[in-house]
């Protein structure tokens, strides 16, 4: 994977040096190998901190909302799942495409640092990445699937945008079903489901990270920031007051959520937000035909279109028991 990082880095250098772009949006080194963060590089010199490894889970597409409106062209590196978010943003006219040079980058699944700890690795100093295995701190060999983010375990996405792609190996396919847990929940009784969600959602501290990171959550003014809406702050009076936030958050991205998995990745409380998004996705698929947001930049979304024959709300309980 070192070779891949070098390939991506030389692409970044080449684009800056040739003057094709004036800035590069990528990931920068942190203190440790696992705390990389998104970064805009303005010069070749700054690229010395450029990094592309298994911890580059952050989806860079949302940064383009602001970055593409600035002077000059910007290059951006997009993993397969990020290209869907990118397309969706282009479709919603949030990005100035003429200012963007999109480059697809190979991805064999990104890591969840917690999973290393769960495997008994106390501190992750270095990770040598192979296609199916990783070597931690030069000694412990782990199966790559055991340390992947949930979203990467079920990912079969291919690049759907980008002027060019930097790829050394073809992406290994996944045979997991992303709706498995949704189906399990649907098969539970209402009381069991209520208990499940109460337990999960009451952990929420309303940090709003899930909203802020989401490329589909891109309104300039958000209902949750309106102090008169009474939904702007975390309340501590009842145990389940967060339902409102969560239902509305998921509803506002229904039909536009690309299932990029960023919300679940950033949640400090490990709330499985993807199970809410995927419920909407699975209902949409069943009721209105299969739809993958971000696959293209022109199709109409399922909630901005209709047919005269649509199911009535009373019949549409989308597979729940």
């Amino acid at each position, binding site marked *: 994977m070192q070779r891949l990082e070098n390939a991506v880095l030389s692409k970044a250098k080449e684009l800056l040096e040739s003057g094709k772009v004036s800035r590069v949006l990528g990931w920068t080194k942190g203190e440790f190998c696992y705390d990389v963060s998104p970064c805009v590089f303005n010069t070749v010199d700054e690229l010395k901190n450029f990094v592309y490894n298994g911890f580059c889970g952050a989806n860079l597409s949302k940064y383009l909302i602001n970055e593409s409106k600035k002077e000059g062209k910007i290059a951006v590196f997009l993993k397969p799942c990020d290209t869907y978010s990118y397309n969706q943003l282009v479709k919603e006219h949030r990005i100035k495409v003429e200012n963007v040079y999109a480059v697809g980058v190979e991805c064999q699944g990104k890591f969840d640092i917690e999973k290393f700890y769960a495997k008994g690795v106390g501190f992750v100093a270095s990770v040598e990445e192979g296609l199916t295995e990783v070597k931690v701190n030069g000694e412990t060999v782990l199966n790559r699937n055991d340390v992947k983010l949930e979203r990467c375990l079920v990912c079969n996405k291919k690049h759907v945008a980008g002027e060019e792609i930097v790829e050394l190996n073809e992406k290994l396919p996944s045979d997991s079903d992303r709706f498995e847990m949704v189906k399990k*929940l*649907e098969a539970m009784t*209402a*009381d*069991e*489901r*209520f*208990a*499940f*969600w*109460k337990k999960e959602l009451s952990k929420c501290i309303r940090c709003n990270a899930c909203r802020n990171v989401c490329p589909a959550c891109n309104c300039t003014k958000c*209902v949750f920031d309106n102090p008169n*809406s*009474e*939904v702007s702050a975390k*309340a501590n*009076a*009842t145990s*389940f*007051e967060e*339902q*409102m936030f969560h*239902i*509305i958050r*998921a*509803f506002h991205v*229904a039909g536009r959520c690309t299932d990029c998995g960023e919300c679940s990745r950033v949640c400090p409380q490990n709330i499985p937000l993807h199970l*809410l998004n995927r*419920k*909407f996705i699975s*209902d*949409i698929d069943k*009721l*209105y035909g299969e739809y993958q947001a971000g696959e293209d930049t022109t199709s109409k979304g*399922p*909630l*901005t279109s*209709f047919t*005269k024959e*649509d*199911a*009535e*709300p*009373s019949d*549409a*309980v*989308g597979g*729940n028991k």
Partner: protein
Amino acid sequence: MQEINKERKPLIVAFCCNWCSYAGADLAGSSRLSYPANVKIIRVPCSCRVNPLFILKAFQRGADGVILCGCHPGDCHYTTGNYYTRRRMSLLFSMLDYLGIERERTRVEWVSAAEGAKFSNVMNDFAKTINELGENKRLEDLRCKD
């Protein structure tokens, strides 16, 4: 407090579109057809004006049931508003169900301006369902209730 709660009648909020269902409710009134007094009507320009947040907000504030009434599909004053309502509410109701919140507490009905009798029947039937279900515990917010 306990005493009061025992006497508490379930509260039902009915969002009615201005052009069909609200007129339907009017007709029910002028035809002297009754519907339960605990149904509180909120008039909206079109059924598609109803944002899912309105529905959750009503529950949070103490409603025990929320019903949304609009023109029959194809008859919306704004031509297509209720087709969007239909999709949105299908997804929202399914999501509420997924969260374990009683599915029967929310309903969509199409009531035209000429259907005073239907309006009264729908409301009586919905109120009956809500009365049987009792108080809404799963979507309430104690801060908002007395």
